[in-house]
């Protein structure tokens, strides 16, 4: 995996993880999918669990791109950008928040992990 790819996956994974965490909350689930049922408690826990896993993978991608010491610093920056984007999309373009997550799924080079979230979102 080269560095640009690693940086890109770090952002994609962070965005996916954060979107997953937001989806596990009623308020934001309603924002993104107004017509669908709220997830069951068990599904919610599964989402949270998987999302934290994705955030962990994002940290791993940062360490891959920058090395452990600088990567740890960069990870905070990557998370900040991901949340900033999500927080801005949620009120102004809630549909795009979900679509962007799907896009991130398809393009995140760590494909196996991307699939986890798209399955999760179908619930």
């Amino acid at each position, binding site marked *: 995996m080269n560095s640009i790819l690693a940086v890109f996956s770090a952002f994609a994974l962070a965005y996916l993880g954060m979107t997953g965490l*937001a989806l596990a*909350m009623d308020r934001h689930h309603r924002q993104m999918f107004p017509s669908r049922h709220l997830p069951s408690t068990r599904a919610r826990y599964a989402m949270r669990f998987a999302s934290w896993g994705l955030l962990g993978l994002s940290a791993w991608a940062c360490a891959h791109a*920058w090395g452990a*010491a600088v990567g740890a610093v*960069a990870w905070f920056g990557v998370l*900040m950008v991901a949340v900033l984007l999500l*927080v801005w999309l*949620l009120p102004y373009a809630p549909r795009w928040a979900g679509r962007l997550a799907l896009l991130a799924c398809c393009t995140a080079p760590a494909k196996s992990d991307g699939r986890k979230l798209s399955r999760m979102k179908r619930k």
Partner: protein
Amino acid sequence: MKEYFRQSMDWLHTWTGLVVSWVLLFIFLTGTAGYFDTEIDRWMQPEVPAVAAQPPTEQIVAVALARLRQQAPAAERWFIHLPGDRSEPSLRIRWQSAQAADGTRAVNGNEQLDSASGLPTAARATGGGQFLYKMHYRLHYLSKDVAYWTVGVATMFMLVALITGIIVHKQIFVDFFTFRPGKGQRTWLDAHNVLSVLSLPFQLMITYSGLIFFSITLMPLIVAAYYAPGEPGRQSFRSEFERGIEVKPAGIAAPLTPIAPLLNLAQARWGADVQQYRIEIRHPDDANARISLRHAIDSPSHYSEVLVFDGVSGALLTIQPAAASNAKAVRNVFIGLHVGRFADTLLRWLYFAFGLLGSGMIATGLVLWAVKRRQRAEQQNGAAHFGLRLVERLNIGTIVGLPIAIAAYFWANRLLPLDLPQRGAWEVHVVFIVWAIMLLHATLRPPSRAWIEQFGLAAAAFALLPVLNAITTDRHLAHSIAADDWVFAGFDLTMLGLGVVFLWSARKLARRAHTAVLATPLKPGSAVNGSAMLADERANQANPL
């Protein structure tokens, strides 16, 4: 008890935040610009060409030494910064003379050289990005002690505001993704929360490490107790860090050993690019000369291992570790994280974004303070008291006025006559003159108008900078992009981006002011009714976005 605790923390957060906010905003904005100090330096000296291919290192060292012998033969220390590092794109020499008997330093100096000819680069005098960077802890027009104490106390207040902020924000996780636009005061609170929580790791790091920078200034008694009171104690404390290099000049002239073999030795050990090493020579051309080599900073631990050589024989004398103790290592990491010198381009942009978020956190906090009180004043049908009006004015003049003043710094760089004496100093005077005008403007105009006018001015000041650059130099945006000169292109594009943000804010406010004027006659006597909605709308006019 618990509620009382939270209330008192709320009080503490409100007031520690308010009293130093404008100073903090100054520190944040100039410090954030400081993350791109070298890039701004280069934009502010358009005569210096984009870095070209460098001659062999041996030759660069030779021209640097020749220039140092000519400029500062009697200096105690010489420094050579080889070109190629981000923080030193050009060859730079510095020199320092011995401490005079009365404790003041004798002549120091530095020059940027052309690495082929060894002559100083011909470029306009400017404060450059270094001045913006330096202002964030040194302020300006103040003595060093006053500035350090002011910034130190403001930083301490900020740390208190951060910690109390975490305590009073009851729902960090529940509201983590929450932002509700168009709801007046609620929106301001959401924005303040989101900006603060998102950048919290950065804010805690930058504030705490900022205090570490000042630890000796803020806690002078520790050095006084362990060494000696006053300047002698501080001097012997400082010399602790120089153990192993400390040596007196012999007073006998001796030729300096060639430096290239030492560089090769260092490269075998460190492997990094030789072009990024820094060379320090103590007591040059003396029998007791010492040459130390450092490598570029590539990790948050900030300091490099130092190789110390005998300056005459070239023998390796000592290897100083990057951190002499664990305590020093912890300090180094905090300093390194604060300065971010290790950051590559992407990470540098993230640092910049964190800095802007921090500025946004302070600005939204300030506006929130004023919105709340303006609303209360409207509801109670009372006039806004002096404190509220003062804060509203200071907010406009600082949140928008200060960015305008920084843009004026760049305008001054291009427009002041090139032969003006003290040109660099005048660029900085322009910053404070413009800032004063903006503060004055904010006091003279009604707040809702002042916001719109200053946002409009800021939009023009930033968005027209690339145009000014195109008129006054031949390195316009299209040229920079075509020449792959991303320092110049990046600067122009960033200014354009900032201009667009300010323009968007100005338009948004103007539109709201327009609709508010249309709506007012429909609700006669609404101030008597104390309609919360309208009070909210008014409050937003005085403290908009």
